[in-house]
């Protein structure tokens, strides 16, 4: 068909042919929709199968006692108490490490750093950090935090290690949400006479909060399941006591001894139970696995909800 023949009349004359052609072309839509759906279902079903399997194996242990018991030599009375308390405290330190450092680094790179080869180098390194295997972070922490700084095999060391591990995630999400702020809004702020710091504190940080928070939560949910670096720094697998409480009844009401306490976390407890020959312990491990997945999903769900809630008021 040459160009001249493509006109209104051409379609009219060949109506059947044209309809057949449209039908043929639309077949590709159906084809791709099926492939895409298949790809999505593959990931989803794998996770679902895993989860259901864990729940079915572990369901005898889903009771309050499981959360309030220390580990024990008898599988039936072994519980997660020291592990979930440990995870909670480690996550707290991780949060305090990763958020200020990650947000400050992201803000600096995006707002203050001059654009030259040095900032390019930093940028490449930050992206590379995200790809470093987590066990390497464990080795670094073992050398630096455990021996170098003398923090020992403590909650502080573990929290800081995981904080470093998720630092790239926080930095990248900070930078991305900062970049989403339109230039017009910045210029508006500068135009009334704001300094750079005023623009950063009154606008940039405020409007990127949602994105930063999302990145932090997703990073934390990753840190929650990390095992390799924690094993490397030497977390104990059998802990039948709780770290000293961070809050006390007597003044000054705060206690920092827990930071140097030895600890265990959920994935390590799971790993420990899994490595026992006695099958009864495997039930405990499955239950722990299911709990880790549920907590992770809850955290990611919270991240999505928060992002939606905060972005609702910001339209650009």
């Amino acid at each position, binding site marked *: 068909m040459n160009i001249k023949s493509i006109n209104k009349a051409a379609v009219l004359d060949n109506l059947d042919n044209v309809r057949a052609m449209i039908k043929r072309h639309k077949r590709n839509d159906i084809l791709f929709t099926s492939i895409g759906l298949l790809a999505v279902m593959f990931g989803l079903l794998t996770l679902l199968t895993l989860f259901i399997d864990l729940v079915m194996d572990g369901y005898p242990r889903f009771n309050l006692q499981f959360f309030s018991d220390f580990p024990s030599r008898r599988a039936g009375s072994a519980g997660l108490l020291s592990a979930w308390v440990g995870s909670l405290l480690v996550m707290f330190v991780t949060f305090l490490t990763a958020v200020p450092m990650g947000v400050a680094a992201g803000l600096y790179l995006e707002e203050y750093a001059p*654009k030259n080869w040095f900032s390019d180098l930093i940028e490449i390194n930050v992206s590379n950090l995200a790809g470093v295997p987590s066990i390497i972070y464990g080795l670094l922490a073992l050398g630096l935090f455990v021996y170098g700084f003398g923090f020992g095999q403590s909650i502080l060391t573990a929290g800081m290690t995981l904080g470093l591990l998720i630092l790239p995630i926080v930095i990248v999400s900070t930078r991305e949400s900062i970049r989403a702020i339109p230039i017009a809004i910045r210029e*508006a702020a*500068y135009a*009334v*006479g*704001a300094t750079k710091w005023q623009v950063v504190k*009154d*606008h940039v940080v405020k409007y990127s909060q949602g994105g930063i928070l999302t990145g932090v939560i997703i990073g934390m949910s990753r840190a929650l399941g990390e095992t390799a670096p924690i094993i490397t720094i030497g977390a104990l697998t059998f802990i039948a006591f709780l770290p000293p409480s961070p809050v006390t009844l007597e003044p000054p009401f705060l206690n920092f001894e827990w930071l140097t306490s030895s600890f265990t976390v959920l994935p390590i407890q799971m790993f420990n139970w899994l490595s026992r020959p006695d099958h009864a312990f495997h039930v405990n491990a499955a239950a722990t696995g299911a709990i880790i997945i549920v907590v992770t999903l809850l955290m990611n769900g919270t991240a999505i909800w928060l992002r939606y809630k905060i972005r609702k008021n910001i339209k650009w």
Partner: protein
Amino acid sequence: MINPTTPIKAESRDLNFFYSNGTRALKGITMPLYENKITALIGPSGCGKSTFLRCFNRMHDLYPGNKYQGQIIMHPDNTNILENGVDPIEVRMRISMVFQKPNPFPKSIYENVAYGLRVRGENNKRLLDDKVEEALKGAALWNEVKDRLQDLAFNLSGGQQQRLCIARALATDPEIMLFDEPTSALDPIATANIEELMSELRSKLTILVVTHNMQQAARISDYTAYMYLGELIEYDDTDTIFTRPSRKETEDYITGKFG
């Protein structure tokens, strides 16, 4: 004809401007801004009118590598606002700006207007309340928003948002207000409102407005400058420019033969 006794608020003297990629966007522009008058900049896209306007509040300083050459003198203090020793923040505190697209902050109506005062360290609630009210009245928006000052600025219509941006620029009592195609994103009714507002603002301050709408320049401005390819082709009072331009290029542009 230009009345020689009208006081000059600011003037550019042999102003050149270079973008970081080396482009020379302004070529030796010498032009006055008369006090309490509206000066309009017209010309085809890319002729440098916005570049020229943004020199007045040193907006180009936000992006590294841009370079000014020449002077913009503010009167009566004879400060060259392009001089290295003059902080752009100080300049922006004297000369405020309204942008092409309404760009309110994602904050409340009140906070949008109060922001210029907040960055100056003003936290006195009573004073802020008064200033916000005064600015919103000055921008002809008060009656529409007085009962919902804590509402989000995004909930206003486009024309209201632009008047809010004018109120924000007005709240700090600037000496000069820059308008960069302030109505190009608005419908005709909102445009008429903004134009009327600009005419009223003239009694308080000096206005420089970029517009690609020649009728708008003819309607609202006292003086008009025609720019082309970074050069100032002709500057005169608006009547003269639109009825008896002295340059052929100006006449061609105004009559629509070109541009």
